[in-house]
């Protein structure tokens, strides 16, 4: 047999072009016959295959290289370069005539390409929700109102949720004004609710073992009927006063028998996992049958603040008249229509209401503000309601997990409602009857003030919290609030409001907790990296400013025992040296507050604290080494004159000379407030000697008694203000160094500040 070559003559190898080389590769080479004269023989399969091994492998390799015919390559790819066209992949007319049929055959073998969705179709809320269902991970949950927020807010990934950080516009001042005169709404559904189910005695035992003993117990009479929300602070079992976990709010579900009581404990998600562990541990050690379940993402919680919020709620919540569960609550809510502000209500009251589908009366139309007082009869009924708040207004079916599921997707869809609206014979604009909508929704209204005994009657502290089952119902209610005129705010704005009002926000202002430590270390790394990216000439030289920790408030170092190097590079461990002891129960804080202003020493304060704990919880075993020597307390600082302190600012103990200097300075600056001040002379803020005395003169680090966790210019006060934690012994010493008028103050300096300015402090919870 002759060797068969490829089509056409095969020139020498080195002159082959690409096509010829490819064709040459595809030739199936044939083995020449060894002995042409031998007779034909029978085939032994094994021997045969073994003998033909060469041809078999040759055929296989040729097949591999015969790309076009095995489908690895398309016919238009085999064309020479000058005949290739881009559109040939889908348009056979771009190919030379000879190749078209082959191309058609190849195209017909392919799977049909799905038609790509238009950009508009991809951005429809329904499509986004589908995408979310496919993509949602356990650690990046969407809140119910996510789609609404995503279009208007800058979103961030925090605590396992995607939350709105701040609105897209610059709105600090607008939000502040809205919180003072209008209404603000915040979606706080990221807070986690833990449900404890068991007998009353068991639940109280479990909780009492892990909370601050100076706070009122969960089983106190005022909370047991479920008519009020209470708040307390959770510590790890047996570790009080250290081992703080988080501040929590709680309320009992009413109308449960004593053997099957239900307690709902709400916590910030930064400490959620820790709280669950602590609860479970307490249940196990007490050896009782109490079940701890997380209701994460099953309830939505909206925080409303501001004078108009009450009116907005009155307008958007249309009560279901047929619900037998909440008749009393309905009457109370109708009477409360004339209430000016929820700050007049008893602290922490809860109303269990049932509302009709909010979509039926969407968009809400707010009535104009009332101009006068209500008639005298209503005034007196309202007054008696406020003074004698009944205890049966908070019954609800929200704790029934099965019934909560019915509100995930409300049964007549928006499309069906719109169809009903267009088909109805009533004049256009008439709202649909309640029967046309979904089932009535159980909600809880909670007056937020349950911090305990605080003198704050402000709108933020006393606003309404609305708890709704998660799902469509929550989103519709949110939209009603927004259309009724509430401004939506994000996490950053909420922190700003807390700063203006003077409330600590978790976890930034709670250095006693692990959640704070983790957050602080992350922030430190982020800020340090940002600082290091800048060239030396464009960034603050913290070394020259003698700021040891510009990115971290190192409370731990203030109470470090010896020369132990409290390392900045410490890893994220649970028992981090940075978590400190902070006195936070309302009773203990008032003891400390009164003690400091009375001039008590630290030992006297310790005795008073121990007495206070004993009077609230006589059976509690206080550790023998209970001391306040290393304890901090949260303070609000108000700058006396000018000046502003930033986060991580340092709070110094003022020396006697500094107290004298600033007293003189303040006396001189008060001259300007007098009526006979000569304004024609040029205004000199401070004399050169005064400036010389304070500029760049930083007290040593041993004088530091605390750090600022949230500082800035307060729009509510009109001067600089800050929130921070100070050592109790530092504050006691400050009081001891009061000047002749009895005025005492600390000195504060921001990390970028060159002058330490005086500030007055006020002790907080």
């Amino acid at each position: 047999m002759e060797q068969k070559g490829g089509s056409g003559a095969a020139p020498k190898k080195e002159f082959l072009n690409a096509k010829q080389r490819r064709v040459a590769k595809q030739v199936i080479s044939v083995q020449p016959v060894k002995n042409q004269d031998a007779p034909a023989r029978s085939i032994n399969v094994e021997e045969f295959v073994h003998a033909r091994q060469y041809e078999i492998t040759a055929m296989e390799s040729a097949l591999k290289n015969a790309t076009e015919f095995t489908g690895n390559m398309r016919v238009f790819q085999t064309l020479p370069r000058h005949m290739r066209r881009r559109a040939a992949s889908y348009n056979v007319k771009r190919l030379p005539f000879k190749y078209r049929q082959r191309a058609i055959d190849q195209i017909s073998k392919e799977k049909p390409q799905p038609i790509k969705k238009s950009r508009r179709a991809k951005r429809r809320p329904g499509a986004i929700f589908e995408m979310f269902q496919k993509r949602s991970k356990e650690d990046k949950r969407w809140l119910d109102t996510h789609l609404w927020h995503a279009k208007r807010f800058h979103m961030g990934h925090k605590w396992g949720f995607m939350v709105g950080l701040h609105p897209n516009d610059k709105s600090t001042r607008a939000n502040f004004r809205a919180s003072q005169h209008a209404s603000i709404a915040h979606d706080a559904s990221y807070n986690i609710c833990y449900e404890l189910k068991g007998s009353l005695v068991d639940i109280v035992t479990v909780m009492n073992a892990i909370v601050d003993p100076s706070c009122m117990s969960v089983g106190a009479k005022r909370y047991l009927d479920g008519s009020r929300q209470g708040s307390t602070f959770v510590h790890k079992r047996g570790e009080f006063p250290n081992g703080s976990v988080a501040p929590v709010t709680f309320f009992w579900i009413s109308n449960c028998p004593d053997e099957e009581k239900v307690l709902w404990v709400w916590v910030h998600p930064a400490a959620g996992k820790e709280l669950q562990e602590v609860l479970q541990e307490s249940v196990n050690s007490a050896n009782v049958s109490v079940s701890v379940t997380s209701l994460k993402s099953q309830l939505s919680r909206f925080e409303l603040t501001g004078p108009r919020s009450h009116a907005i709620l009155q307008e958007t919540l249309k009560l279901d008249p047929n619900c037998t569960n909440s008749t009393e609550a309905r009457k109370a809510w109708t009477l409360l229509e004339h209430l000016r502000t929820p700050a007049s209500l008893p602290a922490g009251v809860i109303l269990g209401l049932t509302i009709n589908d909010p979509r039926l009366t969407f968009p809400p139309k707010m009535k104009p503000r009332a101009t006068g007082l209500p008639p005298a009869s209503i005034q007196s009924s309202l007054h008696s309601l406020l003074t004698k708040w009944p205890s049966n207004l908070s019954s609800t079916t929200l704790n029934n997990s099965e019934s909560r599921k019915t509100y995930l997707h409300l049964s007549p869809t928006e499309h069906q409602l719109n169809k009903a609206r267009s088909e109805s014979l009533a004049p256009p604009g008439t709202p649909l009857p309640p029967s046309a909508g979904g089932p009535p929704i159980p909600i809880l209204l909670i007056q937020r003030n349950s911090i305990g005994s605080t003198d704050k009657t402000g709108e933020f502290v006393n606003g309404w919290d609305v708890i709704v089952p998660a799902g469509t119902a929550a989103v519709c209610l949110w939209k009603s609030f927004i259309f009724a005129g509430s401004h939506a705010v994000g996490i950053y704005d909420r922190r700003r409001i807390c700063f203006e009002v003077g409330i600590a926000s978790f976890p930034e202002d709670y250095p006693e907790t692990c959640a704070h430590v983790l957050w602080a270390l992350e922030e430190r790394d982020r800020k340090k990296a940002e600082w290091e990216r800048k060239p030396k000439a464009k960034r603050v030289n913290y070394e020259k400013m003698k700021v040891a920790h510009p990115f971290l408030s190192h409370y731990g170092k203030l109470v470090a025992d010896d020369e132990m190097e409290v390392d900045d590079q410490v890893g994220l461990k649970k028992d981090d040296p940075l978590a400190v002891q902070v006195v936070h129960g309302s009773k203990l804080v008032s003891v400390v507050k009164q003690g400091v202003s009375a001039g008590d020493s630290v030992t006297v304060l310790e005795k008073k604290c121990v007495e206070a704990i004993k009077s609230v919880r006589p059976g509690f075993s206080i550790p023998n080494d209970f001391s306040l020597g290393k304890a901090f307390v949260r303070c609000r600082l108000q700058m006396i004159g000018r000046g502003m302190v930033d986060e991580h600012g340092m709070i110094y103990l003022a020396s006697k000379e500094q107290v004298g200097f600033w007293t003189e300075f303040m006396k001189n600056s008060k001259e300007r407030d007098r009526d006979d001040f000569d304004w024609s002379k040029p205004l000199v803020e401070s004399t050169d000697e005064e400036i010389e005395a304070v500029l760049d003169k930083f007290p040593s680090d041993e004088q530091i008694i605390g750090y600022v966790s949230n500082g800035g210019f307060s729009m509510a006060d009109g001067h600089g203000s800050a929130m921070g934690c100070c050592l109790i012994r530092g504050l006691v010493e400050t009081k001891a160094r009061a000047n002749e008028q009895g005025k005492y103050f600390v000195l504060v300096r921001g990390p970028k500040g060159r002058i330490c300015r005086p500030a007055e402090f006020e002790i907080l919870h």
Partner: protein
Amino acid sequence: MPQPKPTGTITKRAPQRKPTLESDVYVSRKSNFKALCKRCETLLKTQKVSHVMVHGLGAAVTKAVSIALAVKDSMPGIELHVTTSTVNLIDDVINEDDENADDQVNERKNSAIHIRITRTTKVEGALP
């Protein structure tokens, strides 16, 4: 006969009152005297409102009166019209020591003053 003082921490609740109008100036003990005087003067000068109502409750009554008089001295043609009223106040008394104690509510009454400041004559040819 004075009632015995309730034990526990006392928190004052916000009292009921008419909704706030733009012409209302509420005075508290902590208010900045000069700032409020200036606010009244601006409201009257720019004539956004026909009158300014200054309110004061309890210990702030004297301050409210001083503010009204200061405004009267600062501008010509001011008339003051004074009314008083009684406000029902509610305090919460929380007994933190006793778990089983009921919450006490302390009711009291306090006097409030409402001073209406109107600007009557305008001097011809002069700017307001």
